[in-house]
């Protein structure tokens, strides 16, 4: 994968197996231990079979950055990811509310928010997914588009759509 230029993590939810190897890789990378709830990517399973990879959508104009009252969030100009200044962050949760997908999460034990930072250019979640060839996550070159922000979705929204895609009529009221 070419990560020398700005890139985007493609998420193809239908292909998510729920193996959660991305959560394992992410938490090992950022927390030094296997810690699914501290992972920057979390796999939601509101109904079995409807696995949703919930991670930052790297919007063009991120609402989370705009709303932060203490300027703890910023956009990394090279990578186009969100950077969190843990010193400044007060874990007020305003960014979670502002994000259309409620994607930022407050660390389970520390007083700050966590958001995917693309592992500074080498996202280990993508590596873990690619290793298995499950291909839910992969890297694509980033272009100028509002398309990316559309993927800032809540787990409910994605699950509802997936249910219909996978199960048809039967999926209509699963979520």
């Amino acid at each position, binding site marked *: 994968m070419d990560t020398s230029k700005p890139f985007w993590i493609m998420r193809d939810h239908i292909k998510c197996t729920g193996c959660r*190897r991305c959560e394992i890789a992410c938490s090992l990378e950022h927390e030094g231990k296997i810690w699914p*709830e501290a992972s920057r990517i979390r796999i939601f*399973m509101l*109904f079995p*079979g409807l696995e949703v990879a*919930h991670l930052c959508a790297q919007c063009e104009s991120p609402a989370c950055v705009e709303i932060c009252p203490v300027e703890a969030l910023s956009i990394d100009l090279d990578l186009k990811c969100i950077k969190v200044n843990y010193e400044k962050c007060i874990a007020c949760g305003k960014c*979670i509310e502002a994000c259309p997908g409620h994607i930022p999460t407050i660390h389970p034990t520390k007083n700050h928010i966590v958001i995917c930072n693309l592992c500074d250019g080498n996202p280990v979640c993508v590596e873990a997914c690619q290793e298995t060839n499950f291909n839910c996550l992969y890297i694509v070159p980033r272009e100028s588009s509002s398309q990316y922000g559309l993927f800032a979705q809540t787990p409910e929204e994605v699950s509802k759509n997936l249910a219909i895609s*996978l199960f048809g009529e039967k999926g209509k009221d699963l979520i």
Partner: protein
Amino acid sequence: MRGYAGKFIEINLTTITIKDFKFPESDLRQFIGGRGLAVKLLWDRLGDKWEEIDPYGSDNILTFFTGPLTGFWPGARLCISGKSPQSMGIVGSSIGCELPIEMKCAGIDGIFVTGKSENPVYIWVTDNQIEIRDASHLWGMRSIDFLKTISKEGRTILKKTYKNKREVKEPQSVYIGPAGENIVRMAAVVGKLSYGAGYGGYGAVMGSKKLKALVVKGHGPLPEPYDYEKTVQLIRELTKKILASDFRRRWGTSWFSYHAGNTLSSEPVKNWQEEWHNEKTQGCQWYEQRVWVKRYWADFGCPTGCMKLSTPKIGKYIGALTDNPDYELMAYAGTNLGIFTPEENVYLSSLLDETGLCGIQCGNVLGFAAELYQRGIITEKDLGFKLDWGDADSFANLIELIVKREGIGEILAEGTHLACKKIGEIKNIDLNLYNVTSKGIAIGAHGIRSGLDYPHTISYALSSQGGDHTSCAYLPIDHPTSELTVLLNDSGVHCNFNTYPEGTRSKLFEFYTSVRGWPMEKEIWYNTDAKRIIDIQRAALLLGSHELKWKPKIDDVNPKRFYEPLPTGPYKGKYKTEEEVEAFVQEYYKAMGWDEKGIPQTNELKRLSLSSVDVKLDKVR
């Protein structure tokens, strides 16, 4: 000792008390977790009155245990156990699901439940809170309704508990369907949509305790292994080995159906009357092309993704949801009933899942009933409808009767072994030829007559878990598919399938040492620790209950049907003779340190520090 969260929880549903429980470190060392530790707990608490314990009584202990390798070895599982209403022994029944991860992240290695609730309840666990909650609104629900409801309800409670506005993830659960609620002896404990801990009948035990579900959400990390770096490195190595086996990944166990039917002559066809077929529609390619909507579906940490999601796209079974089905259900909700097409197979499999039945136990009793119908022993009058091979709708009708315990379903709900006895008495005829079970437990879908599938001559005759196709008695006892090997996976607790690819199983002991920090050696496991656990399981089987116990001379044999020569296929005429079986039986007794009557010997039990087992066994010597 590392790799453990550090505590177990004991819940009494009669007195509604919740206590922390700690096993001494020596128990953890020797019995590990999951199946091993459950065997230890059950024997310590119930051993001296084993025959008196009613599996459905308030004395029985129902265990939900993880193990030190859960979450680390690729493919996490949970092991459920207790006194089994099917065998009256102890069965370690393992199930793939996310619950064990939530348990360990909530700081709990296992939960065990005694007593009996008056009203339906479920157990709710988060990091620092355990609650017995009302489940009257969930009682009666089939899997899909249950899952929808608990996911919403659980998230609502979590949102209230954790007020920090983060998008809360759903809790995970194991639960029972109406079959368990109605104490159908073949009821499974269900996980996710379609996974069941089926062997043992622990769904019925949950039902007897009025326990609908165990629901858990943890927010902490997995417990620290002794050597984190080494453990992660081993996970990486294992992953590479597992990924090399594309067969298992692409098709899961589904590839086995045509292979077993056509090539190995070991797939049950029409209640094991045959074990061969040449139906290409029962090949994984038809399932993959017609009904799979998710091609890889996995449990925590698993690079294999052997499970698939299926739903028929045409015809009257649109809307049925299940997994591949995996091989066991392709056989037991398929070929064993004379069904050879994906849509019908998916439909029946989904019905078994939804109602919370073990597909193997129930598919076995459905085949048993259909053979009695074929032979005119039971008729349309007994059933209320015709029951011809291949007629999925009639089998669905029968499943509904079993779940509700209505009509002939009342008898069949007891499983093949007891139903065979009962119908035999009513009709005054010996029906044992049609009873394909061992120690009260239906035989997994791998026949032994052709000698080509992995279970061999005495695998079912001597397994401490009866017909369990994963826990096969095997010689030599340290064989890769031997019960003593699988016991390690069931105690670990992790996936068996991810110990099959070349170069994985050989890493087990190194992995244990790396996670637990206690050097674990192969020789000690096979010669001492594994034997200790199996000997307790053996004793529990021999003691059984007053109504149902097993005598080695009569019961350490194969089901009668397996002494009939295969009637069709390239291995027509093959079977294992009584003499062949007997020779292996004696050899196995010897290898296990049992006397020629199949009873663990005093000296051996002394060596294993099992004098309480020795004393109890005097009753059957």
